[in-house]
């Protein structure tokens, strides 16, 4: 596994992209002329300090936020959040087909059963979410995501609430079942990004910038014990530390500017 930038690779058609986007959130300028594109059929992982705007970027792709300027194009997406977002009043199978219900279409229970079987929950389709473990609930969320059958899947830390072993298993399952789709995964965990990502970006600064992708070699999910992966992890941690420092510097500069403005002539 070598540390290479994506320049060596032929560019594939761009499934989803953000062009020259500007976004203000809570009075703060998050993005200013941001460009970012996802490569079709690959997993793109996005790391960065808390509050840098990773979730906002995901929401731009999902169409849940509109940029103040510029544009976001993604087409049909499905969305997996940190919370499983299962409806507690619906059984597992009804949760799986909620998308068709919301579009007032007849639900395809047969396909839902196949998908529930593929996430290992064939025998739980009549249960309510409260009787499931966190890992099982997130697997139902995965089945619901697959049920939507959208080319682009957006994931906002869907594995972060799980214990280590459950997380590893669910990561592998997700890679297997989402193969061929374009995935954008927002995560806090460098190891997760290195296990799953074809392209790994670090997002940093105010307004946020996204640096060139790290593209670890090898098929996903990668073995966490692979020495090359661990070497990458050191590199990634260095980038994240630099990003966090830049973030702190930017905050300090902003605070100093505000103080200077307050204490101005007088």
């Amino acid at each position, binding site marked *: 596994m070598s540390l290479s930038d994506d320049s060596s690779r032929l560019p594939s058609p761009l499934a989803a992209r953000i062009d020259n986007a500007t976004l203000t959130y809570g009075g703060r300028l998050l993005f200013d002329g941001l460009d970012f594109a996802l490569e079709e059929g690959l997993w793109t992982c996005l790391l960065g300090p808390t509050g840098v705007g990773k979730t906002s970027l995901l*929401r731009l792709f999902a169409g849940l936020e509109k940029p103040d300027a510029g544009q976001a194009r993604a087409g049909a997406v*499905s969305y997996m959040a940190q919370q499983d977002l299962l409806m507690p*009043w619906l059984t597992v199978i009804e949760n799986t087909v*909620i998308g068709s219900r*919301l*579009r007032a279409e007849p639900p395809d229970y047969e396909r839902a059963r196949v998908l529930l079987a593929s996430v290992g929950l064939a025998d739980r389709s009549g249960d309510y979410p409260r009787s499931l473990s966190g890992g099982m609930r997130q697997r139902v969320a995965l089945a619901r995501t697959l049920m939507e059958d959208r080319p682009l899947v957006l994931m906002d830390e869907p594995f972060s609430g799980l214990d280590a072993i459950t997380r590893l298993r669910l990561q592998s399952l997700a890679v297997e079942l989402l193969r061929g789709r374009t995935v954008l995964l927002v995560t806090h965990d460098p190891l997760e990004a290195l296990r799953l990502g074809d392209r790994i970006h670090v997002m940093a600064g105010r307004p946020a910038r996204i640096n060139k992708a790290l593209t670890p070699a090898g098929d996903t999910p990668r073995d966490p014990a692979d020495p090359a992966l661990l070497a990458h992890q050191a590199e990634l941690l260095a980038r994240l530390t630099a990003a966090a420092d830049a973030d702190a510097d930017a905050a300090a500069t902003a605070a100093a500017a505000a103080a200077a403005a307050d204490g101005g002539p007088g």
Partner: protein
Amino acid sequence: MTLLRPLIVFAGLLALWQIFVSLSGVPPYLLPGPGQVIVTGFDHAGLIAGHAWVTAAEILIGLALGTLLGGASALCLAYFRSARPWLMPILVISQAIPVFALAPLLVLWFGYGMASKVAMAVLIIYFPVTASFFDGLRRTDPGWLDLGQTMNGTPLAILRHIRLPAALPAFASGLRVATAVAPIGAVVGEWVGSSAGLGYLMLHANGRMQIDLMFAALFTLALFAVALYFTIDTILRRALLWQADN
């Protein structure tokens, strides 16, 4: 077992009452013992049943109308932000003015019949139903709404499959309060002016020192109110079985 314990408590209270009446020597025209009340109740069963039917109808119609009206108001408040400043004062006023003070006016407007009592019951339950349901609708998990949006859900389907079920627990607590207070509205209405109903019968019996008949009517009212509450509560519990804490 769950039914047995309240029955034991109830029987114990009746026994205490009987003992008090027997030992203290209170004249029966002031406080009859429970035995005498029960006998009188059976003697006048037809009379009581006739009046009970009127009161029950007032309570049930009031409950249905008040719930519908409160539910519709809550939906308006949740969906039409611009309507909030207009509807909120009505909601608060409906709760701030004591219904008891309005009762004579309502009788004047809606007459001696059922309509004025139904109006009282509606007024008294409108606030708890609207406030709780609105609160439930307002607190829909934004994550669910995001999910609905990325799934291209229609607004009506999102209301039906996400917002309404999510608001059901809050709505249920409002409806429970409403069920408990609706009989108050109906009976107060009957006290102010009526020619039928358990409230009327109680006032009538009281004026003629037929305290045993008054108690029998009161028992009937309490029995109906409790039965109604448990019926509604059971239905709501069934509908909310999915809640983790049930």
